[in-house]
């Protein structure tokens, strides 16, 4: 079986929802607190970019040269797409992968690797899951390492891998810019709000491709903020059962914003909540989950003033309205240029070859072979 065929079969196996998929879904629910429908959607989205055509583009015949012996992928967060991407990107480049599961969600990577073994036993040596201790031992040895984590963790990884090929995925955040041409009527405001809510609700996380800041070109942003609260409340992706420890920072940041004079729109329970900041008030540390900070602006937003924490840390930007104006915005503020630009509601649907953290991993790995 060719590699391309094996990867296509793997995607099909996860679409077909057999016992392996059901078990993975249940484990994911237990470890993340997501309801079943949320876990199912998260898994669906993880494999969605890997269509047969996308896999064909990924698995291009090598141009010779010896590929790295293996990739050590240190995963983080609870989103299954992170494990799926690492596996597909690595295998497509012809590089075996060793996955280290995140502590917060230790189950999915194991199911993923076993499912690969089931559909393509000949690839057994190409994918495995390593324990924390094994990963620590491999860290200074692995020919290539793809690591996700906090900035502190990234610094530690970089320190242990001086002179070795390493792709670091530190903390990045995303935001939406909605120009006035996307807000010309009540229905367009509602539509923009629904699309932003879609990207916010999935995964109930903070950062990465979840747009927790909305820059809105309007003197009066309240109609958009109200529409967004409504859209978040009605979003079909069910909110999970999260422990108090995870929701505590959400409540604390919301109450701090309220105390500082921001308008907090919410129902009796948060999340969801929309925090409408006063004009020129910089974004507060994002509490994540379904809490969005809305910032009004006129003309072009002053990114240095509104999002100072996001300098050189932008993963994605979703735009409503004129994309040309967005390009001009990044010419003004190059430190905020994102890895991914897309329309509203598309942030959490990145394609198979997107430059996460600025790197297309498959191409990076393939290039190593050519350069040897």
């Amino acid at each position, binding site marked *: 079986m060719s590699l391309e065929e094996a990867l296509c079969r793997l995607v099909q196996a996860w679409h077909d929802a057999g016992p392996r998929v059901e078990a993975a879904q249940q484990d994911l629910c237990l470890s993340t607190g997501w309801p079943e429908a949320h876990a199912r959607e998260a898994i669906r989205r993880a494999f969605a970019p890997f269509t047969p055509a996308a896999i064909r583009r990924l698995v291009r015949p090598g141009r010779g040269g010896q590929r790295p012996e293996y990739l050590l992928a240190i995963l983080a967060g609870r989103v299954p797409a992170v494990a799926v991407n690492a596996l597909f990107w690595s295998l497509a480049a012809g590089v075996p992968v060793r996955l280290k599961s995140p502590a*917060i969600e230790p189950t999915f990577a194991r199911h993923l690797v076993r499912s690969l073994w089931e559909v393509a036993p000949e690839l057994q040596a190409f994918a495995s899951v390593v324990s924390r201790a094994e990963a620590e031992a491999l860290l200074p040895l692995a020919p290539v390492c793809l690591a996700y984590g906090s900035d502190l963790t990234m610094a530690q990884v970089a320190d242990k891998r001086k002179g070795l090929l390493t792709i670091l995925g530190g903390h990045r955040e995303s935001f939406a810019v909605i120009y006035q041409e996307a807000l010309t009527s009540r229905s367009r405001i509602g539509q923009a709000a629904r699309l932003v809510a879609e990207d916010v609700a999935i995964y109930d996380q903070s950062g990465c491709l979840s747009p927790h800041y909305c820059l809105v070109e309007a003197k009066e942003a309240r109609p958009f903020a109200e529409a967004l609260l409504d859209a978040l409340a009605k979003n079909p992706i069910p909110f999970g059962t999260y422990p108090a420890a995870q929701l505590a920072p959400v409540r604390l940041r919301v*109450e701090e914003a309220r105390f500082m004079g921001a308008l907090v729109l919410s129902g009796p329970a*948060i999340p969801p909540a929309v925090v409408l900041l006063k004009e020129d008030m910089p974004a507060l540390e994002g509490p994540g989950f379904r809490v969005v900070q809305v910032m009004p602006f006129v003309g072009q937003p002053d990114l240095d003033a509104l999002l100072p924490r996001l300098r050189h840390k932008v993963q994605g930007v979703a735009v409503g309205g004129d994309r040309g104006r967005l390009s001009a915005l990044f010419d003004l503020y190059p430190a905020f240029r994102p890895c991914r630009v897309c329309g509203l509601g598309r942030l959490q649907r990145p394609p198979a070859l997107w430059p996460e953290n600025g790197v297309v991993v498959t191409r990076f790995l393939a290039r190593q072979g050519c350069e040897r």
Partner: protein
Amino acid sequence: MELLELAKEVASCIQAWGPKTDEEFLSLAQAIAEAQGRPLREPVPEGAFKLMSVACFPPSKAEAVFLSSGTTGATRSRHLIHDLALYRLSAMAGFRHFCLYPPMPRQVITLIPEASKRPQSSLSHMVSFILEEGWERPPVIGREGERLALEKVESALLLAHSSDLPVLLLGTTLDFLALFEGVPCPLPPGSRIMHTGGAKARGKEVDRQEFIAQVGEYLGIPPDDVVEEYGMTELLSQAYDAPRVSGGKRRFVPVPWMRSKVLDPRTMEEVALGEEGLLCHHDLANVYTAVAILTEDLAVRAEDGFFSVRRAPTASPRGCSQEAAES
């Protein structure tokens, strides 16, 4: 009603170990909240004390400024104190009730510096109040500058051991752990310790059961005489885990002029008994700043207090960059 009048009423309550009923407490809390211009149901988040001055009086009129300890580079909480006497009254009434049960300790040994050495520490002010209590034997301050004076403390402990008179040791949980690295010195019966900050110790995991066992091994003090104090820079009143006074399962019980609620962070409603949530205190002694404070502490609700206190994580789970160090 004016804040000054309310402060007098609070002082009377404290002197009478009250308020005696929930209605009395609520009525006074609401009057204070109204005078402060903020509804009782909207507690001031702890973080607000880092972001701005929280006070109902001109900051220039502050008798003291308490700062939280804070880690390097972190913004520290700032609590402006309008009436140090009210803090003294509140802190000492709670201390006497929960720590000075019979047999009365005859001497105090503190591992915490007094207020003259750390004027911006609310805990050091409390220690100074305690040192001024009029002890039978002269108090010992086991601190030289910022350093623990371990030899001095060990000498004091040996003297206490030979005198056979019960002593009270005060210290932060981390101070005690440093002390326990030395030679064990059993103290006379009736001795006790009051430690604080264990729940909030950063960078070092402190297991309560293990700590209590270490107190027994090093000082010969039984578990029931290990008293833990819960306080924070932003509060002028405290809660105590004092088994000999409160009885029953170990838990923090606040003084009657402070009510502590454990809230569901989603709804801000009280959680059921045994469930974890965010700690919110209504402290009547905070008459000049914020009577209701939403802390960054998580705790489990008990019938008349709370237990298993820990700091809430500062941020929600992140996308691909969830702290890999946790793994």
